[in-house]
């Protein structure tokens, strides 16, 4: 099997939501000497295609969940093959804010970012503001992702951003908020840099923020 076919197989397994299959084809591809970075690129492209279909209304939540799990299975095989000092696109600290336990959207965002070459520290659900601050400091993160699905907990996002300011870390990170009850206006109100409506929009959102940053003199 040539390299092109091996890469195609990885993507095909992802698009077919085949968790067992993707482990096998990623292993085979690695054994034939294909670089992990190239396999990651296939995963990213595949997830991008799935995300685009979701945004168009052709795909549904279950397809995001199952493709995310399939990508994670591939990433688990790839992880030991990444050397120390491997170039990462950025470091992300992400979690669902205190009082809230919804994590489907957040998990999908984590997987998309991992598959796209970001170093992701997923703190889970019901995360206290102080923990976000500590992790950002310790990991020297440059992106913060905050998730909430309850109208009663979304105000906890503001608290995290205020605590970051107090700790003198606000300018170190781009803060992105996401979750069903949120909006662009809300993101601005709580002092976030961006709002992600649907999980698959995360990469576009980060690219836009990076572009904006470059434009600032």
């Amino acid at each position, binding site marked *: 099997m040539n390299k092109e076919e091996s890469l195609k197989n990885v993507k095909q397994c992802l698009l077919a939501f085949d*968790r067992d299959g993707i482990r096998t084809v990623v292993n085979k591809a690695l054994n034939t000497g294909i670089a992990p970075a190239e396999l990651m690129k296939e995963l990213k492209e595949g997830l991008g295609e799935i995300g685009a279909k979701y945004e168009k209304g052709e795909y549904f*939540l*279950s397809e995001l969940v199952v493709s995310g*799990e399939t990508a994670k299975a591939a990433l688990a095989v790839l992880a030991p093959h990444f050397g120390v000092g491997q170039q990462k696109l950025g470091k992300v600290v992400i979690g669902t804010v205190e009082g809230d*336990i919804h994590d489907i959207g957040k998990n999908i965002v984590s997987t998309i970012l991992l598959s796209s070459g970001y170093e992701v520290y997923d703190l889970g659900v019901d995360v206290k503001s102080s923990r976000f601050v500590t992790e950002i400091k310790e990991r020297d993160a440059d992106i913060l992702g905050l998730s909430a699905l309850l109208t009663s907990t979304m105000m906890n996002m503001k608290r995290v951003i205020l605590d970051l300011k107090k700790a003198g870390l606000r300018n170190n990170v781009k803060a992105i908020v996401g979750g069903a009850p949120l909006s662009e206006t809300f993101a601005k109100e709580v002092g976030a840099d961006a709002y992600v409506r649907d999980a698959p929009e995360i990469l576009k959102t980060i690219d836009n923020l990076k572009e904006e940053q470059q434009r600032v003199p």
Partner: protein
Amino acid sequence: MCPRMAPKERAWTALEHREPDRVPIFEPWMHTIIIEKILHRPFTGVHDMIEFYKKLEIDFVPISFGAPKGWKPKFLDDKVFVDEWGRKWRCQKGAIWDMFGFYIEGTIDTPEKFDEFEFPDPLAPGRTDDLEIALKAVGNEYAVMGAVDQGIFERAETMVGLGKFLLYMYEKPSFVRKVLEQHYKFSLELGKSYLDAGAEFILIGDDIADNHGPFMPPRLYEEFVHPYSKSLVESLKRRGAKVIRHTDGNLKPIMNYILDMGIDGLHPIQPEAGMDIAELKQTYGDRLTVIGGVDVAKLLPFASEDEVEKEVIDVIREVSPGGGHILASTNSLHSFVPDIDKFVKNVLRYVETAHKYGVYPIKS
């Protein structure tokens, strides 16, 4: 013209897609604080719900099922408890039911745990106590409904966890079917017991969608969920019930299945999910009574009372002519609002406007 129908007849007529004397009103779920603010006393249970509906002249009186007599939730700490279905909740003051709160997670999340789990009995003594109280108190006059809350899919997915449940549709389909089947049987037996108790209206609450769309593609909906949902509705309708189905979210990709289910009315038709009540009425009004129209995301929490009145008049003029429309807020009367007193005033204005301007024939 003075309204001349009893609420029950009004409700029945609207669900037959005909014009009653005025547009009926339907508000199945609310935080108890709303009831307390309107009745000016602490909420104590089903009697206060009945009083609330009577005071506001809301035509439907939906009553959910109770826990078995003597059953107590298992508290893991002072705030978190596990319910009959092994689901963890965090207590929330003023929630819709006494002990109901924020859902945390399902714990029956593997086939092994499900096999060991003792599934709750739909006919356990205590299930229909509240409904029987309501039927006795106002059953001759009002459209008292037995509510099969969280129906089949929602109860199943919250028991397992939505993410896992969706994943299992691909990876453990027989387990998913088994869980859905048990919830179908529970819902059916419960629904039949409501009808045996004397209810003529059934409400099936069962969320299967969010603002983006159904949680699963139509083919999986058809394969896993639709047969049970349809069979439940058909069985209850065969016994003469009028059936209203509630589900949040954007249902457009599965509207053919919603119609095929054979329900009499659909609630709440959320505009923020892209659902347009006027369009739905125009397209499916001969087969489906549309229930909704009063925006609870932006209008009721934030608008002035006059703006509420205008909006309610607009929706009545656009959607109510010809019948087949029941007014309702576009989800529930929740208390997640910045100013609860303003919200309550707006709810009162919405109901007053419905009484005043919802009288047939609708004046343009």
